[in-house]
């Protein structure tokens, strides 16, 4: 599904990705975790072609990413900050994205799911942050694509919407779709994800299931296991020396 080979990216002098290798098969939910500034968003953006790598190759569904744009037809992406042109109404924005994608969509179901019906005729500039995030979710999930990338999907959502979102993710996963999710809410990650991809210093530091992570770090609590993982290996190296 996704192949990343020796990916390098730096912004000025700041090295963000340093020879990252990643292979992701189809199906399942992959949580991309890591400390702030470890390159999670950069990795996602290189997959989408928004950030151009300095070195290395990427391919999504066997199609190389470089200078291409049609492959994005198979990706649904939820960006981190939901900020839309203020003068458009919610209905118009949805119609516009549909017009751009030219794919069958099921936005009505999602609008009902997140209770957005009363907001359809409102201008986007008048919506609250949480409502904007719901609109963002509708735009992301309304198309049927094999790869779904969510950058901080829980931002600003109320508990009910969060439950609906989880149900939605599980429903789509059951159809054999692949998810890449970043989040700082560990409880959410633990509930939904099958595999953890842990980034540190521009490389994949750990890739495996939550139970593997727990046994590796010797922690029974997932949050503590994540906190322990970055210190775990340096400890390991100490022993080797």
């Amino acid at each position: 599904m996704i192949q990343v080979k020796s990916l390098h990216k730096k912004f000025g002098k700041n090295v963000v990705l340093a020879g990252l290798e990643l292979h992701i098969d189809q199906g399942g939910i992959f949580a991309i975790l890591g400390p702030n500034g470890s390159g999670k968003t950069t990795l996602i953006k290189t997959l989408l072609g928004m950030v151009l790598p300095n070195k290395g190759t990427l391919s999504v569904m066997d199609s190389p990413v470089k200078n291409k744009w049609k492959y994005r037809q198979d990706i649904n992406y939820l960006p981190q900050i939901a900020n839309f042109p203020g003068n458009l109404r919610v209905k118009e924005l949805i119609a516009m994205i549909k017009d751009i994608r030219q794919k069958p969509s099921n936005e009505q179901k999602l609008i009902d799911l997140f209770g957005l019906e009363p907001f359809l005729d409102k201008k986007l500039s008048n919506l609250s942050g949480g409502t904007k995030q719901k609109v963002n979710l509708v735009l992301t999930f309304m198309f049927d694509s094999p790869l779904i990338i969510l950058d901080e999907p829980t931002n600003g959502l109320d508990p009910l919407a969060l439950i609906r979102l989880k149900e939605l993710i599980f429903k789509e996963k059951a159809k054999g779709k692949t998810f890449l999710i970043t989040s700082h809410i560990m409880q959410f990650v633990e509930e939904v994800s099958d595999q953890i991809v842990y980034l540190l210093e521009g490389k994949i530091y750990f890739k495996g299931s939550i139970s593997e992570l727990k046994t590796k770090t010797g922690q029974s609590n997932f949050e503590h296991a994540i906190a322990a993982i970055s210190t775990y290996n340096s400890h390991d190296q100490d022993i080797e020396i």
Partner: protein
Amino acid sequence: MIKILKYSFYDLVRSRWSYVYFLFYLLLGFVLLFLNNELSKAVITLMNVIIVLVPLIGTIFGVMYYYNSKEFTELLLAQPIKRSSIFLGQYFGVAGSLTGSLILGLGIPFALYGLFQSNAIWDFSLLLITGAFLTLIFTALAFNIALSNENKIKGFGYAVLVWLFWAVIYDGLFLMSLIVFEEYPLDTFSLIVTMFNPIDLSRTLILLKLDISALLGYTGAIFKQFFGTDLGLFMSIFMLFLWTAIPVWRLGYVAKRKDF
């Protein structure tokens, strides 16, 4: 690209500022016609306003629109659309709606006044054409500046500087050089220097079309010899076209290589 253009255009057409801009020209047109009572004089006054105001509004609107729609641009970048289409679409959306405000705002009062029966129609059309070019040029420059500067304050600063340079500083430097080199023949020099500034070029073009070049003395005669001919007009329009095409090309070039 057409789709992005369409939506940017709709978005702008419904924003308050487009109306303010449109109403300003509408008011200006009516007031000038009633005060001057003569079309060609109104055209000259309008020219003085347009030549300074259109580039300023184009620059400010361009920078503002780019920075305001940044997150939305990122959303579009993740959609299956070519990068250059996104930026060119937004650019033409902004430039198009500004040009629309200008042409409609001035066109309505002049049409009501009886422009179509008058001889001033060509002067007036030239005024609108140069106004449209100036909008396209300065919006493109603004987009270039915004694209190259992540920092909004810096971007705004540079944009205003660019406007100030072409509208004011350039003329100052030009005049100074004329004084410094007054002992040399400067006709060709001033012709060329005028050609390189879109604002000066537009002004000269309109002034000469209005047949008041006699007021400009000897230099005016030289200018008339060049700009008054078909070749001069063609060259001027060509230069304005280049002024539009180069920034637009750079816009696509830079957008293709930028990280978002």
